[in-house]
């Protein structure tokens, strides 16, 4: 399995100190740690959303720390997706328009195809009937799934997710996690930051970060229907061992 993300000696102020790790193609990995440990900063710096002070980040075969803003925008548009805790969508557009927004902006000629693709994605995440709804007319879980659809529009190689279930209730969080699992099964790599052990337990690997350093790693293997409880228990025990 070749690495889709290779991080080497990454530094960002006092928050990240010489962080190194790799994510293989098709993996789904969670980053956990207490508040202020640096997990979100790590995500922003490895996804090119923020600029690290030092170190290397090879994303999809490209060293991204030296890229210009426009080159990074190109990378974000075509090769990666991003899912936020706050489910940012533009109020002025309906759900489907929000989903196709980056794709249509990049390539107006294939607008019709993008709308068809968005509709198919929404159907696959069980929100197809919400296409014409306004942003404030759907639930949190539905909105987060719509955000996942948006991140999937350009067929990204990797998706970064920052606390994707952080603002959701338990039912909505389960719906969203199902969406992530399906996405991963279909071949998309996922790196997510979470503080929810149940969410982390569906991942193949968990990285534990504390005071800006990776302090441990738990390998859970590929998720399979029915083993959630065991994975959760294993995760909780490991986290206790790590001192959380």
């Amino acid at each position, binding site marked *: 399995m070749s690495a889709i993300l290779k991080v080497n000696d990454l530094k960002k102020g006092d928050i990240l100190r010489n962080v190194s790790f790799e994510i293989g193609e098709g993996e789904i990995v969670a980053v956990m740690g207490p508040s202020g440990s640096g997990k979100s900063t790590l995500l922003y710096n490895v996804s090119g959303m923020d600029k690290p002070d030092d170190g290397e980040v090879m994303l999809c075969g490209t060293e991204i720390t030296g890229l210009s803003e426009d080159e990074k*925008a190109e990378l*974000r548009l075509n090769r990666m997706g991003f899912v936020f805790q706050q489910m940012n969508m533009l109020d002025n557009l309906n759900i489907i328009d929000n989903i196709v927004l980056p794709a*249509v902006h990049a390539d107006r000629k294939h607008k019709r195809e993008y709308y068809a693709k968005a509709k198919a994605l929404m159907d696959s995440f069980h929100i197809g009937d919400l296409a014409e709804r306004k942003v404030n007319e759907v639930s949190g879980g539905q909105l987060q799934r719509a955000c996942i659809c948006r991140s999937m529009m350009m067929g990204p190689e990797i998706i970064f997710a920052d606390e994707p279930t952080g603002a959701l209730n338990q039912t909505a969080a389960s719906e969203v996690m199902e969406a992530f699992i399906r996405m991963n099964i279909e071949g998309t790599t996922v790196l997510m930051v979470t503080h929810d052990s149940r969410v982390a337990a569906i991942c193949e690997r968990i990285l534990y970060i504390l005071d800006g350093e990776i302090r441990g790693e738990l390998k859970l293997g590929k998720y399979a229907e029915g083993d959630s409880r065991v994975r959760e228990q294993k995760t909780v025990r490991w986290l206790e061992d790590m001192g959380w």
Partner: protein
Amino acid sequence: MMNKRMIINDIKANRLVSAATFIFMAVTAMLLGLSIFLFAGLSDSIDRLMAEAETPDFLQMHTGELNKKQLMAFTQEREDVEKMQICAFLNLQNSQISIGSNSFVNNMQDNGLCCQSELFDYLVDAENKVIQPAEGEVYIPVCYRKEYGIKPGDIMRIGSEELTAAGFLRDSQMNSMMASSKRFLVSDADYEKLRPLGSEEYLIEFRLREGSDINAFATAYRDAGLPDNGPAITYALIRMMNALSDGLMILVILLISVVVLFISMLCIRYIILTQLEKDRSDIGMLKAVGISRQDIRKLYFSKYLFLSAAGCLTGIILAVITGQPLGTHMKELYGEAGNTGLIYSCMIFGSLAAEAIILLSVYANIRRTDKMTAVEALYSKNAQVKKNLWLPATVITAAALFMILVPWNMRSTLNAPEFVTYMGIGESQIRIDIRQTDNVEDKAAAMTEEIEQDKRVRDHVLMQTGSYKTVLPDGASYDLMIENGDHSRFPVRYTEGRYPEKENEIALSVLNAEEMGLKQGDTVIVCREMKDGGISEVNCTVCGIYSDITNGGKTAKGCLKKPDDATPVMWSIIYLSLCDDQLAGAWTGEYQQRHASFEDGVRVTLIADYLKETYGQTIRNISNASAVSAAMSGIILLVVILLFLRLVIWRERSDSSLRKALGFTSTDISRDYLKKALLYILPGIVLGIFAGIVPGQSLAAMLLRSMGAYSFHFIIEPAVVYAAAPAFVLIVALGAAHLSLMEVKRIRAYECLGAGKAK
């Protein structure tokens, strides 16, 4: 399609902000379009009239004997002369003239008759066609049509003679009320018949070949010793006189449009910054999902582009609608503009230019999104320093007051009695002109004696004007019309130095000083004709320079008239004031009656009437512009305060909600906002008064310089400047604040908890 939907939804969601942006864009486009429309229209109409009427390039007025042979010889010698003609002008006594039921006794102009010119300088009709009057017909200067309500068919009486008003004429030279003479056109036969009723003077007119130097020609004419017993006028001066009375209004509108453009740019800047602050997380999201900086800029810019296009279109329509009534007077005086296509193109260009300037500033402000990284935009609360939204209230209050005060101060200045002192006329109540009589000196002496015995007269002074030959420091000779008398009595406004007190002192008008190349302290030799037939040379020092628009702006003042001086007096003027100001009208009327006969050659004028007539149209135009400006600034101020206070309330909504949760009432919160609003509006008012007086005066001085009024100072009406205008601005601002603060009532205490908080 999606962009369109975004724009429409965004406009719907932010109705007030979008409406304000649209209004700013429309008003700016309208004002700039309107000023260019009027300016291009006026300029084109004047050019067309002057071209079709074939206005002379150089014109010398002359009273008295005329040596035609000498003039012909001069003309034939000069290669730059294309055509020359001598037009007779029969000067009439205004008291003899009446049209319909209107007497011209109070008219201040030099009214007279003339025949249609033979070669050029034609008097034309409403279609700019050369008029050929039939016997018994008279064509009336178009500027009198409205003033006296004259209709074709009315009877014009000159003494006992009668003529029928057949229509109206445009006079490319004397159309403007600022030109002091008016020509009535009659047939050659009628002119001959009426000749005994007036005194004849001559207009010696030249058309020069294209590319000729008019100034060089004027110098050559003067040096040739040709008839020059009156002012000389050039094509450029005629054009300026034509353009001024309406042009000044256009300049005021232009000034207002520049201020509005500035206000629009400032407001839109703050609107954008607030919008970006509000949409920061959206921008972060757009960056995070890979939309490039250019596309984000495009996304925001397209909304302003849409508003700007709508505003521009509305502005152009408004400019066309308002341009029609504002241009009526110009159209009547100078005719339809010929090149309407070009004029409309210029107007559209003006409106587009206004929008382009605004859009450039919009673009510069939107570029700020470039600097934010996706993470900063998404999560950092302090990524952008919050702009003080109260500051525009101060600046715009000041700008609104400035917009009201500058046109108003110009109006009050032109209206004030002392304004004449900028015009080269002493600040007296009444002036008596003694001209066109065989013996000006004797008549003036008799008149002075009559006045001295009149107990109602408080003060008077006799000024006698004669033409003197002077020798400049470089040896060149220059003919100078010098007004001699006691200049300390009713002094004019001196831009430099003071009035002459001694025989060896002389003051020059700005135009003369420029043409003679002299400044204060320089000397010039003035040649006096002595009673013994000899010439006495006086070495005069230039003691002062003053602004003047009378007699083509080329005058001088001295104290040369001594008993042994034999230089002929061309005309005399007696300036006087009465003990009781209220009597001025009656006194003038009485003296007008007493000296009504033409042989007297006396004209008694109330200075206030003279001003009213000369600047009446300009003052009316500026009054209109100042009313429009006041209304406009009221609307702008209302919109701006309404908008910015709403933005402040929006930004502090969660704080206000928290205060409500802690027990504050809507009234408490509103009162605090009102106090803060006053804190920013009151300095704006002080700043506005200052700006309206000091920089406003400099701007107005720049405009009035074009009228010949130099070193200009506002003559302000304190009640308006310090009370009425600030009160108006304060009432509008507080009214707008009151409307905005109604929003405070809609803030709920629970919003601070996050639920139901407006995005």
